């Protein structure tokens, strides 16, 4: 049934996107948390831009960039034999851009709160920088990592505008839940629209409750 294929596809996309995002965001956020570089504000602004730009801007540029008529898109075609637009890989790239701030920002916050003292203490005990990061900073930041992963996943599930512009609505490849809902409403198939929308409503409530539970220990509560 096509509804379930879109649900399964959405979960796959969110899963792949989350893994990629966590892998690239950890070093990026670590650098942002520690650096005094002059380009830091610019990099921060770049990663936060998907928060403020309408998805149509991202969708428009990706449509141009990933087109087989552009150098980037053409390179991908020679590499893999298929075009980036209207493919699952294209959606993964779009989603990584789109959900980037949701991964980087919680991680950066978590790394910053580890603090310099902890890292210096680790250094005086003879830990290398990598060792200190791995055995001190990362474990202390595990809530941030979890929050980043959960938010990336959830935000990718909720993606619509970008996918509408570069997806091409192919069942099993690019037809995600949000697109399925859009089509269902257009064709007056309110039963399917209710089913999927209700499902997303419950899903996002549960996910956000989990996130807030992870992070929302009261200010007055003891450690």
């Amino acid at each position, binding site marked *: 049934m096509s509804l379930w294929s879109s649900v399964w596809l959405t979960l796959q996309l969110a899963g792949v996107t989350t893994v990629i995002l966590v892998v690239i965001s950890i070093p990026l956020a670590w650098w942002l948390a520690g650096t005094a570089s002059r380009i830091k504000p610019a990099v921060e602004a770049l990663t936060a831009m998907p928060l403020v730009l309408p998805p149509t801007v991202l969708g428009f540029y990706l449509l141009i960039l990933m087109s087989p008529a552009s150098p980037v898109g053409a390179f991908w075609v020679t590499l893999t034999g298929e075009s980036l637009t209207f493919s699952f890989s294209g959606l993964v790239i779009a989603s990584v851009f789109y959900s980037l701030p949701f991964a980087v920002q919680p991680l950066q916050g978590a790394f910053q709160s580890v603090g310099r003292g902890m890292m210096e203490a680790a250094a005086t005990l003879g830990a290398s920088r990598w060792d200190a990061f791995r055995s001190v900073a990362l474990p202390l930041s595990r809530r941030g990592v979890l929050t980043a992963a959960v938010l990336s996943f959830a935000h990718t599930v909720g993606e619509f505008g970008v996918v509408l512009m570069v997806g091409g*609505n192919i069942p099993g490849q690019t037809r995600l839940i949000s697109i399925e809902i859009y089509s269902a409403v257009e064709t007056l198939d309110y039963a399917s629209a209710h089913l999927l929308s209700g499902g997303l409503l419950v899903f996002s409530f549960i996910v956000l409750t989990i996130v807030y539970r992870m992070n929302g220990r009261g200010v007055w509560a003891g450690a």
Partner: protein
Amino acid sequence: MTFRILLLLSGLVATLSTAAQSEEATVAVATNFLSTARDISAAFMNETGHEVILVHGSTGKLYAQIVAGAPYDVFLSADADRPARLASGGFLVEGSPKPYAVGRLALVYNDASMTGSIQDILSRQDLRVAVADPAVAPYGRAARSVIETVRGSDWRNGIVLGESVAQAFAFVATGNADIGLVALSLAIEHADRIAFHEVPATFHETIRQDAALMIRREVSGAAHAFYEFLDLPTAVEIMTEAGYGVPP
């Protein structure tokens, strides 16, 4: 003091609303017909002095908006189905809807060196073909039946779906799809940047586009006049030039 401001305000509102009543019509138009509707309403405003406000969207979305109480006077649909539903729902003036145009398809492509008949091109399996989603768009349904006549029931290979005929066209225009089956009017409008073949009308069922005149609390003379204007030679000529057929 307050009273005087109120009086002033109510006077202003009254002036504005009478102006709106006698001079303005809000026309909801299916996106495929938008540029043609712009030309028609320009000619209409020129001849009558009335104002036309165009609102565009997909037929399905505009239909849902009308059912939800959107303040449109006239609805230029891309199909005959949605206006018929509005009529049976009691939204339309007696005698409405009526057909105003017949949609035509074109096969558009970027590569001007592409040769062969429409059947030859459509039967190639190596091309990416953009069409509007048949589930949503009447032009998509027609495009699907054209492809099915060439390829048989296994029509899906290489097909990408746009949410509207305009998006399907954009997929081709940006080089993301090799060919597309879209509204002839779009191909004619962008003839400077895209190559196209007209698809013979016999290749698919007629895409009849109906116009609906809505029942509104305040009857707008401009709305009636615009609805009638669609049948007049000026409008018919604009539509024919734009690539639409005249309804029988």
